């Protein structure tokens, strides 16, 4: 049955996360941006509260294909829907801080979907400890941005494990992470079939964080460059174990990398929706206060506000649709790309229009200016807008026998 009301559980998650966003995130939002870091004390506090942007808690199992074992649970899974609902609220609070919340982050889904039971226990178990811990996901390289099949980080098989050599960029929480899921290739000539996913632990000799980047926005979030120099990784850290790559057809490592996106893109889209909503609501309040009783709000301002409301709702529903499909265990690559493309685009438009409405005053210590800087990357990371369009177009033309 078509339904858009939140279930009691969904409402509860939304209300709880919203409370946290409003009372714990917003107060430190502008300061964290200015200082380009989230206060340690704050992180310890929220870690104790158990708040996380953990993909393994909220989502993380999208991308399962219909040919997987049929499910028999009487209750419909709603992890992905809960994930997008929570992500929207957290990003509404502050997107940079949301990305800095302790937890496995983007590293969660590949460990969940591909890791052996021992690996899951070993790597995900650390997040139950008292001190904040992070996981990270290292795929992108300087020479291979969106074309992730072109990664060059090498994994050379040696006795007892692999030796990694290569350079990764734009890794969220990459410096502070206790471990990183790193993608490397055993042989670039094999293309996608040569890809392997490793969990590389902090402190492994030859694995270093060389730089934390300064960015236009999301300044409180740590974006690191990582280098592997003759870095030995024991065989136990090969995600899924050797057998996983031998038994499955060819491009398994690549599939691990890609299927992550089917669950994380809706999360990222939801965050973009949350940012747009934050800017919209902030501007609404601003307009209310700037136009005292009796003074007419200009028509173009009213129309812009109405238009923003429509765009935000459209993006949210596309996001819900992608998450809903993932919960049903249906392939959702097209929907995940659609929501990411739409939310990425409109969220910047909304933030820009909000600044336009506020005028020069908006530049000076207002949240909207920060949100505008923050939101731009949501149209870039987790696959640029162009990549999303390519994915959508491929799916549209596939049934007509055309490969793009």
């Amino acid at each position, binding site marked *: 049955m078509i*339904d858009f*009301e*939140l279930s009691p559980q969904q409402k509860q998650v939304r209300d709880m996360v919203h409370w946290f966003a409003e009372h714990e995130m917003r107060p430190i939002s502008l300061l964290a941006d200015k200082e380009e870091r989230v206060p340690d004390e704050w992180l310890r506090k929220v870690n104790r509260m158990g708040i996380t942007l953990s993909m393994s808690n909220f989502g993380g199992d999208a991308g399962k294909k219909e040919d997987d074992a049929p499910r028999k649970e009487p209750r419909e899974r709603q992890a992905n829907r809960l994930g997008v609902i929570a992500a929207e609220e957290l990003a509404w609070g502050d997107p940079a801080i949301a990305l800095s919340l302790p937890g496995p982050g983007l590293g969660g889904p590949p460990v969940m979907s591909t890791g052996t039971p021992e690996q899951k226990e070993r790597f995900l178990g650390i997040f139950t400890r008292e001190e904040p811990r992070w996981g990270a996901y290292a795929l992108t390289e300087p020479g291979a941005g969106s074309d992730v099949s072109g990664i060059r980080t090498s994994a050379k098989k040696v006795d007892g494990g692999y030796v990694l050599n290569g350079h990764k960029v734009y890794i969220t929480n990459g410096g502070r992470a206790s471990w990183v899921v790193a993608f490397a290739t055993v042989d670039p000539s094999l293309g996608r079939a040569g890809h392997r996913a490793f969990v590389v632990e902090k402190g492994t000799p030859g694995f270093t964080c060389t730089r934390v980047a300064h960015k236009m926005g999301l300044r409180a979030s740590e974006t690191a460059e990582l280098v592997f120099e003759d870095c030995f990784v024991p065989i136990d850290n090969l995600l899924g174990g050797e057998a996983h790559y031998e038994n499955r057809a060819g491009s398994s490592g690549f599939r691990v990398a890609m299927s992550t996106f089917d669950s994380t893109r809706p999360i990222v889209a939801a965050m973009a929706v949350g940012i747009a909503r934050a800017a919209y609501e902030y501007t609404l309040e601003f307009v209310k206060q700037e136009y005292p009783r009796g003074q007419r*709000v200009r028509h173009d301002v009213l129309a812009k506000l*109405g238009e923003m409301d429509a765009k935000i709702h459209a993006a949210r529903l596309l996001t819900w649709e992608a998450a809903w499909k993932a919960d049903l265990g249906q392939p959702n690559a097209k929907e995940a790309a659609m929501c990411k493309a739409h939310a990425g685009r409109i969220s910047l438009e909304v933030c820009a229009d909000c600044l336009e409405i506020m005028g020069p005053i908006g530049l000076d210590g207002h949240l909207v200016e920060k949100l505008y800087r923050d939101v731009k990357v949501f149209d870039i990371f987790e696959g640029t807008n162009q990549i999303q369009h390519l994915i959508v177009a491929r799916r549209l033309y596939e049934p007509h026998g055309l490969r793009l």
Partner: protein
Amino acid sequence: MISFLPTDEERAFVEVAGEFARNRLRESARDAEKARTPSDDVVSAAHDLGLLSLELPESLAGAELPLVSQVQVLEALAFGDLGIVQGMPGLCDSASVMRLLPHPERLELADGAAQRVPWIHVEPGEVAVIVERSGFRLEGVAFPRRSALGADQLLVSFLAPGGEAIVAWLDRTAAEWSEDAGDVRLGLLAAHIGRIGFEGTIVRPEDVLLRGDEAEQVIAGAKARVAVLEAAKCVGVMRASLEYTIEYTSQRKAFGQEIPKFQGVSFTVADMAIETEAARNLVWQAAHAVDSRGAEAMQDASRALAYALRSARFVTNQGVQMLGGAGYLQEYPVEKWMRDAQAQAVLYGKEMEWFERAGSRALGLAEKEGVLV
């Protein structure tokens, strides 16, 4: 519980409607446009399938379907041809007013569901309302509206001098009005678009169905319903244009390769798909909201319509663009869909006004969802 899954019943109904749209509506679209009306046999086939009385209340032999089911059926029908759908009897805006009337059974439809009854909700400055001893007198010409031509009955609503809202039912046997087809050439040519001329038309006390608060509520509720239903039809024409464009471009080669391999084409088509999906989701959400909250969900309904009108213009325009010169020729359907979508936007649009009202509501400026809002 967020869900995008239609029920089995809905799916079955949509399948029937979809097949009819593909086989009958799509096929006869150009003829209907030329004749400026759907053919009698298409109308009677639609009637037999129960497609003309989806919105009408049961007491008027209607199906009284929830909006969330209707929007799926209408989308499927408009996928066949929006022009014909808009020219079908029964699928008129007045059905939404009838649906909300406290005693619809008191109405006597001249020819059951297969009747075109326009709803003339008088806009400010459109038609003058003068109080007479025996009711009201209407003077002026109403703007062009769908279903106006050939109507034997009219639903009119207006604000009487003094601000009281009135809903009335006029019948040719007792009331007089003229009709004028004008010179409509843009689109929706089978939709019986015309102006209604009131020259001293008398609305007698016995013609008045509702007045005051009751009338206001029904008008507001019907406006929300009409917005959602019309938005659903927009999604249908978008889907038609999208599907045809994919089909056509996947065959078309230029510079030695299929043109979707140029990203200027494939990215545009992806945008068409994203906009179509976004509009459809908004329509479904609004339908769900109006089903449960009535006129209180006006924000959802107007958001869906404004977005759908804008998207329909975008998608159908890009459909023509992607076909290039062929898109401009009437041998291909996309130019018609573009004209139809634009005409639809003109009839139901003033998109910026919809957005403006939404902004007003968000700011709490439109305190009362009055009949003029």
